[in-house]
C-alpha cells in the first residue's frame, strides 16, 4: 500500500468515527461541533476524489453555513426549554429507527455495488461541448449551461426556505426585523475581524465567483463567502439584520432566480429553445446570471440564520 492509500484509509476511518461521535454525543452543542468537523473532513475527501468544486461547497455550505445555522437554532432551542432532558424514546421506537437506517444503508450499498463497470458517464460529452459555452470549468458548464433549469430550481428552493422561516413570524411583527445576532455590546476581537477580515473576505468571495468560469469556484461558493462576511458584521453588531419588508432585501433575494428565469424565457424569443444561450455569447450571459445568483445567495443564507422577524416594523 502506498502512503497516499494509507492516508485515504485513515481519512475514511476518521470520517466514520466523527460521524458516529456526532450521533452519539449527548450534548447538543457537542454534536453540532462534531457535525462541523465532519463537514470539513468530507471536504478533504472531495479533494482526494479530485472534486475541488464540491469540496469548496461542502466546506462553505455543508460545514460553515449549516454549522452557524445549527449553533443558532441550538441556542434558541435551549432558551425555549431544555431539549436535552427530553424523554428518551422507547425501545420499540429506537428499534424502528435503527431498522429504517439499516434498510437505507443496505439499499445504498446494494446500488453502489451493482453499478456497472465502468460506471456510465457523460463526462466525455460534457468535455466535448465545453468550447461552445466559452467556459473552462466543466462543473460550472454543467450547472449553468447543461442543467441550467435544475440550478434555477435550486435557487428558487433557497428563496422558498427563507419564506418558510419568515412565515413563523407572528402577525404583529410581520415586516419587521429578525432578532439581532450576538451580544448587545460589540466585542473588540469581533470588531478587529470586521476591519481586517471582512474587506479581504469580500474580495475573496468575488474572486471565487469570477474564477469559477475557468477554475474551481463559482456563484455558490463565492456567494457563501460573501454571506459569511455579512454574518460576521451582524454578529459583531456593527449592523442589524434588515427588516424583512425592506424592498432592497426582497429584490436581492429574488434577483438570482428572476434573472435566471428571464434569460431562460428569452431563449425562445431569440430563436432558440427554453434556456438556450445564443451561440458565441454564452459566457457573458452565464457570468451575468451568476453575478445575480451571488447576490441572492449572499442575501439568502444570512436571512436563514437570522430567523423569523421578531421586532415590529414601526420601531
Amino acid at each position, binding site marked *: 500500500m502506498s502512503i497516499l492509500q494509507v492516508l485515504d484509509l485513515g481519512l475514511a476511518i476518521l470520517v466514520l468515527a466523527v460521524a458516529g461521535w456526532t450521533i452519539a454525543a449527548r450534548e447538543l452543542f457537542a454534536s453540532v461541533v462534531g457535525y462541523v468537523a465532519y463537514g470539513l473532513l468530507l471536504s478533504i475527501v472531495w479533494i482526494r476524489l479530485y472534486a475541488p468544486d464540491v469540496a469548496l461547497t461542502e466546506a462553505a455550505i455543508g460545514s460553515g453555513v449549516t454549522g452557524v445555522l445549527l449553533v443558532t437554532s441550538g441556542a434558541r432551542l435551549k432558551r425555549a426549554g431544555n431539549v436535552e432532558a427530553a424523554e428518551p424514546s422507547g425501545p420499540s421506537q429506537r428499534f424502528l429507527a435503527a431498522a429504517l437506517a439499516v434498510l437505507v444503508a443496505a439499499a445504498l450499498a446494494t446500488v453502489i455495488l451493482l453499478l456497472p463497470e465502468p460506471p456510465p458517464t457523460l463526462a466525455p460529452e460534457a468535455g466535448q461541448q465545453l468550447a461552445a459555452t466559452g467556459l473552462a470549468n466543466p462543473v460550472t458548464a454543467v450547472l449553468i449551461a447543461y442543467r441550467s433549469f435544475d440550478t434555477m430550481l435550486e435557487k428558487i428552493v433557497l428563496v422558498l426556505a427563507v419564506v418558510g422561516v419568515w412565515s413563523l413570524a407572528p402577525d404583529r411583527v410581520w415586516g419587521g426585523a429578525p432578532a439581532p445576532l450576538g451580544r448587545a455590546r460589540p466585542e473588540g*476581537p*469581533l470588531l478587529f475581524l470586521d476591519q*481586517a*477580515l471582512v474587506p*479581504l473576505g469580500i474580495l475573496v468571495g468575488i474572486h471565487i465567483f469570477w474564477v469559477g468560469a475557468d477554475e474551481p469556484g463559482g456563484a455558490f461558493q463565492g456567494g457563501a463567502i460573501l454571506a459569511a462576511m455579512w454574518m460576521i458584521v451582524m454578529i459583531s453588531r456593527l449592523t442589524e439584520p434588515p427588516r424583512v419588508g425592506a424592498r432592497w432585501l426582497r429584490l436581492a433575494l429574488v434577483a438570482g432566480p428572476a434573472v435566471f428565469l428571464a434569460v431562460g424565457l428569452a431563449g425562445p424569443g431569440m430563436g432558440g429553445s427554453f434556456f438556450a444561450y445564443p451561440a458565441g455569447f454564452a459566457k457573458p450571459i452565464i457570468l451575468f446570471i451568476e453575478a445575480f445568483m451571488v447576490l441572492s445567495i449572499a442575501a439568502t443564507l444570512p436571512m436563514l440564520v437570522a430567523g423569523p422577524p421578531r421586532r415590529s416594523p414601526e420601531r
Partner: protein
Amino acid sequence: MSLALDLFTLAAIGAGAFFFFAGTVGLLRFPDSLTRLHALTKADNLGLGLVVLGLLPRSGSLLDALRLIAIWALVQLPGAATAQLIGRALSRRRAAE
C-alpha cells in the same frame, strides 16, 4: 541546490507537523480551558506557518508563493480573534462564579 531546498522543505514541514502534534496533545491533555486554548493557538499559528514556509520553495511561481502566505495570514485573523473571544468568555464566566 535542489537537495538543499528539499531538505529545507522536509525540515520546515516536519517542524510544522511537530507543532500541530504538540498542540493537539496539549488540547487533549492540558488541565483547563485557557491552557488548552494556548496550546491550540500555537498549532495553527506556528504549525501552519512552518508548513507554508516549507512549501514556499515548491510553489511554481511567485504568485503561488504569495497565495500560500495569504492563506496563512487569513487563517491567523479568525484564529486570533476566536481565541480572544473564547478567552474573554472564560474570564467572564470565572468572574461570575
